[in-house]
């Protein structure tokens, strides 16, 4: 079905308020997301920021070395190590973190008293606004060697557990920290989606004798499915970003082996050493993988009959 084409001028006249409203956001996107893309050129240069009279000239005067940075990157065991860590943590959190906000949202949604619900929501949202330094200090004060748990165990003549500095269980620790910080925040979208599910469906199902679990399985979860799929795709596109400060702060505690992720790799091997071309190469690689993952996940979503992040 083809709609009749409306001339551009008419559309402009009709929509100009909307365009004006979008303009600031678009400008920010342009200046902070699109223009800097051009800077990726340094991934193919032996970039020296001090050449020429200004930063632009530094781009122009730096020596062009093609894929040299990428070659170094792919030969660097530290890079592959960081990549492996990142993917392991992403996979782990996809299984053990991603579903939790959904469960919490369903739980909150089933609470009848709106005052109790509001109170719980406020409490679980709050940690999202704490900085990572604070979150980790909180964990250290609770679970660290001089923390509440350890001191209580000592009083009971028990040997305290090593929770904060054990590289083998680090993945559990970072996930626990992330869950504590962000589980509440993650429920917002799901709660919104839950509120759009038609209440009549539940009543009809209940009248037909469906129990609590059958209603959950046949009404609630299918109702949430588009949102879950959408967030899952977005999360996959971000698969190579698992956090930064959280890992920097605990780096010495568990060592580089356990805590090096791609973002910290770029920081230590590029920002901290002034080796910008190398970091740009790693960043470009990361972006390319992210794009592939988004496209692949979206394709799978289409196959499953979902809309994904864009329609075909």
């Amino acid at each position, binding site marked *: 079905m083809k709609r009749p084409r409306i001339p551009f001028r008419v559309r402009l006249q009709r929509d100009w308020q909307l365009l004006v409203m979008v303009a600031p956001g678009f400008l920010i996107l342009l200046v902070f997301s699109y223009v800097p893309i051009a800077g990726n050129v340094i991934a193919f240069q*032996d970039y*020296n*920021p*001090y*050449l020429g009279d*200004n*930063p632009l000239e*530094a781009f122009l005067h730096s020596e062009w*070395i*093609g*894929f*040299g*940075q*990428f*070659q*170094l990157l*792919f030969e660097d*065991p*530290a890079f*592959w*190590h960081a*990549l*492996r860590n990142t993917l392991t943590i992403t996979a782990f959190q996809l299984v053990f973190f991603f579903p939790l906000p959904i469960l919490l949202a369903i739980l909150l949604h089933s609470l009848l008293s709106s005052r109790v619900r509001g109170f719980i929501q406020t409490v679980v949202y709050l940690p999202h606004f704490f900085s990572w*330094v604070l979150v*980790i*200090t909180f964990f*250290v004060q609770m679970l*660290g*060697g*001089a923390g509440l748990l*350890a*001191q209580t165990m*000592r*009083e009971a003549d028990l040997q*305290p557990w090593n929770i*904060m*500095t054990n*590289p083998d269980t680090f993945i559990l620790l970072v996930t626990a920290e992330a869950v504590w910080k962000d589980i509440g925040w993650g429920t917002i979208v799901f709660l919104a989606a839950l509120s759009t599910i038609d209440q009549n469906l539940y009543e009809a199902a209940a009248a037909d004798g469906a129990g609590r679990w059958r209603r959950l399985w046949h009404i609630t979860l299918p109702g949430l499915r588009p949102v879950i799929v959408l967030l899952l795709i977005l999360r996959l596109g971000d698969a190579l970003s698992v956090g930064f400060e959280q890992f*920097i*702060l*605990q*780096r*010495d*505690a*568990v*060592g*580089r*082996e356990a805590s090096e992720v791609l973002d910290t790799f770029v*920081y*230590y*091997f590029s*920002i*901290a*050493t*002034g*080796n910008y*071309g*190398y970091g740009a190469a790693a960043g470009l690689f990361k972006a390319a*993988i992210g794009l*592939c993952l988004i496209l692949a996940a979206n394709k799978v979503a289409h196959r499953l009959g979902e809309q994904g992040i864009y329609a075909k």
Partner: protein
Amino acid sequence: MTASRRTFLGLLGLSAAATAGGPLLAGCSEKPTASGGAENLDKFANLLPARKELALNISPDIAGTPPVPSGYTKYPSTLIDAITGKPGTSGKEITAMTPVWGPAPPGIGQSAYLQAVNAELGVPVNFTTQDGNTYADKLNAMLGARDVPELLCVPGWEIAKIPRFSEAVKALFEDLTDHLKGDAVNAYPMLASYPTASWRHAVWNERLMAVPNPSDGPFPWALFTRKDLLEARGLAIPKSLDELLTMAKQVTDPAKNAWAFDDVFPMIQIYHKVPGSKFGWRLKADKTPEFKYETPEYRQALEVMAKIYKDGLVHPDIVASKGADAGLLFAQAGSIVFKQAGVGFWQGAQAEHQKVNPKLNIQPVPVFSATGGDPLMWRADEPISFTFIKKGAGKERVEELLRVINWCSAPVGSQEALLREYGVEGKHHTMTPNGPVKTDLAFKEIANQYFFISGRNPTIGPFPDTPNYVRDLLGWSNETVKYLEADPWEGLKVEMPDKFKAFAVPAEEKFTDVLRGRRPMSDVDSIVAEWKANGGEEARDLLAKALSEAGR
């Protein structure tokens, strides 16, 4: 590692690209290159300012053995006006960046201290203060973006971490040679009073590029203890490493919230006489340079420190997170009994925390030798920091900025120094017969901002709020200075190869893994081999070449 890369790309169904990618990448690419260099500072005598000491009517109370500066125990009763007239003429705000350790002081709008000093300067200086522990990261980003403030403080020890630093200096900062060389410096009498040796280090690319902040003590680290806590346990300050380690076990009692140490690895290295020149080098008998990682002394130190960690003598908060505040755990909570810190930590911590805990008595532990013979102390008598002026400000502005630096460089005994260090009477300090004593507001607002954009002919004290400090410090310093390590590269400015700089942190982290027991001691050989391959040998060649070129 190639295997894992293949597997990974294979997962994505990109193995074809991977096989094709290898030769493709190799075909049209070159690897990036860069290197370091060395300059013999003796050659630049003609660029340096002529020294002219200030005529002050006060003299130090305790003499220091050079390079330890002399100290004042009493605050001068009469103060001179060292500078007449206001240095600022344009009224145009000056931007500056300085390091701060601990909480950041309030900005220009909320700080009575900054406002008072700025009023005297006649031109406002607007400071951005950055965490001193991660200052190099901020500097790197700032220099790389070529976006620097008009006055930039660069601490001496950070320069070693910044690749292409001399290129950055050339591209971004004003050449000060013609403003300061020879008698030209007389326009800035405070700058003329700096020791000539400190100016030598401010030469880059054969030009005078910065104003140095001369070192006020030649030691990079000291081990401090809470003497009050030791006395409460019937203990005295230890006199040998064995005593220290035995005492560490005695004082560590998790049930009472007490641990012996924070991270004291550099001090443990010093006790084992690990080399420290140019951040870890010395000459072997056959005159080849040798880095600390290669020495048996370093391994011994590594073993001792690893055992300290293993025995649980380090405070768990320090072990668990970089966010922990060791200074507070030591000086305020007393949960750490022995803390390593720069010497500058002592006076500030004592002055601030004795207000709450009058019994507080922070004292240094004497330096000792773990292996017999005389002890050894690393040397850090190069300038603390350098103040650079942004390029392109114009002659008049550069002169104004130099006058501001000159004002901030006024020595003890002047009104300017009183205001700089103690702020405004009634607000930041109260006058006592012994001199000014800081208030709580002073601890909040004064964080060495103006100190870090200037320099002085170094002296110590006076510090009326900690009356014993100058005596104690000079006692410890005059004893420790006897064991100062000789630097074979003295007077040579060496910029290490980029590859060496880039591997410095990864190498340290690998040794941290050994220290914390995550890697066995037997891995040390392979880490050293890795270090050699990643710029270690290049650095050795550079240092050897620098020496032979200097004819040593």
